[in-house]
């Protein structure tokens, strides 16, 4: 079943067209990556999908319902963890519940239930500045999760982390994804990350940006640890690089 759908999105800023005729679908339980160069309009597309800005043309539908320009329908997470420095970790992750009108005590206890699953045990009363980069990112993911929309838009959530932390986060994320059924649309400019995590990869290229190719990763989930050094993995990577190269020449 199609969960989130974008049809013919066009968006420009200051007379420059950033996106044109972008359409995509996200099915239930799927993880789809949107891959493209920095500044190629990925983040703009996410803002449109999250309802934070209104496109000149096109529609956003969730379960067939028109939601163009209506925020609050999907979970949204950015590269920056955006944990508020003046709130404790538990109060940070409980923020979506508080905004949703839940009482403070109830929101805290609900948020606390997930701290172990997200590898944040014992950090409830700490402040974000006392956490490591990986922990902060997991806290931001938990906050996103607690917004409990069945669709999550993640905008380069791991790109600010060092390589080893990033690797650990990938493994952890794949594990958690199984436990909490989410449909995820994932922005990245890291090809390896996209192949490792996705069911499908959409390549957003050109100016104005369009989706010019779809690549389906057939490897079963949960993925083997060896997958990212296998021949199939390299084959996917080659295909993506070839396409990006040919788009650049055009």
């Amino acid at each position: 079943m199609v969960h989130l759908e974008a049809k013919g999105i066009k968006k420009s800023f200051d007379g420059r067209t950033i996106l044109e005729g972008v359409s995509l679908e996200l099915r239930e339980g799927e993880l789809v990556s949107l891959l493209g160069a920095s500044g190629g309009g990925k983040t703009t597309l996410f803002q449109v999908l999250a309802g934070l800005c209104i496109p000149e043309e096109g529609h956003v539908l969730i379960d067939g319902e028109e939601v163009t320009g209506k925020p609050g329908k999907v979970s949204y997470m950015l590269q920056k963890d955006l944990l508020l420095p003046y709130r404790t970790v538990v109060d940070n992750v409980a923020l979506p519940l508080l905004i949703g009108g839940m009482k403070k005590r109830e929101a805290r206890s609900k948020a606390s239930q997930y701290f172990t699953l997200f590898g944040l045990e014992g950090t409830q009363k700490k402040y974000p500045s006392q956490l490591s980069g990986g922990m902060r990112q997991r806290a931001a993911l938990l906050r996103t999760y607690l917004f409990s929309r069945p669709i999550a838009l993640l905008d380069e959530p791991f790109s600010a982390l060092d390589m080893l932390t990033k690797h650990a986060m990938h493994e952890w994320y794949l594990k958690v994804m199984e436990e909490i059924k989410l449909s995820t649309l994932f922005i990245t400019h890291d090809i390896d990350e996209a192949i490792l995590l996705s069911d499908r990869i959409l390549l957003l290229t050109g100016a104005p940006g369009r989706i010019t190719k779809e690549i389906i990763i057939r490897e079963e989930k949960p993925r083997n640890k060896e997958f990212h050094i296998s021949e199939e993995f390299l084959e996917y990577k080659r295909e993506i690089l070839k396409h990006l190269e040919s788009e650049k020449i055009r």
Partner: protein
Amino acid sequence: MKRKSQSITNKLWSCSAVLGLLFLWQGISSLRLIEPYLLPSPERVGRALITEFPVLMEHAKITLTEAFAGLFLGVVIGFIIAIIMDHFDKVYRAFYPLIVLTQTVPTVALAPLLVLWFGYEMTPKIILIVMTTFFPVTIGLLSGFRSQDPDAVSLLRSMGAGPVSIFRYIKLPGAMKQFFSSFRISASYAVVGAVISEWLGGFGGLGVYMTRVKKAFAFDKMFAVIILISIISLLLMKGVDMLSKKCMPWEQKQ
């Protein structure tokens, strides 16, 4: 541990500097390098402070009442103005220059006018203090409100937060640091403002006391009241610091 011992050493240095200056002053007076009626010795000032203490406290009560009332109203008004200006950009553009203009008028020039309009009671003094204390608060809060991360705002919007939630969860707590540094300045302005306005007329207060002892050429009492005023200012600032630590626990845990 290291930081603690360092701060103790720092205090040791500043304490010995103060003590040294006191000895120097006492020496100058004892050796009669300056006539004692012009520069009373610290010992005489201390004695004046003790003998005059009950009288000084009576006057301090009046001054502090004015300072607190003015500071409270000034902070409240400063808060309201900042919120309105932050919310309505047109109001900001229309009134911001005017507010800056109010600060170019010297307090001392305004005080006699306020006395003429409102008499010798507390009203003109409180008005004067409000006029000097609201300004730092408004400016501090405004810059605090405006310096928030737009990405954090859009994140909250994506969670369905309206302007009230954004104010409550991002703008207000995010501006607390600027608010308290302004509040600290306002607190010291409040005491000084109260004293200055009392110079120009009134029935009681440390400023009135000051003009009286000046006319009597009682320099020791003059020094005593100056010391008392600076002690009061220091205590007020200390109070603000304690309040800010209480209100911003996150600042302690870096």
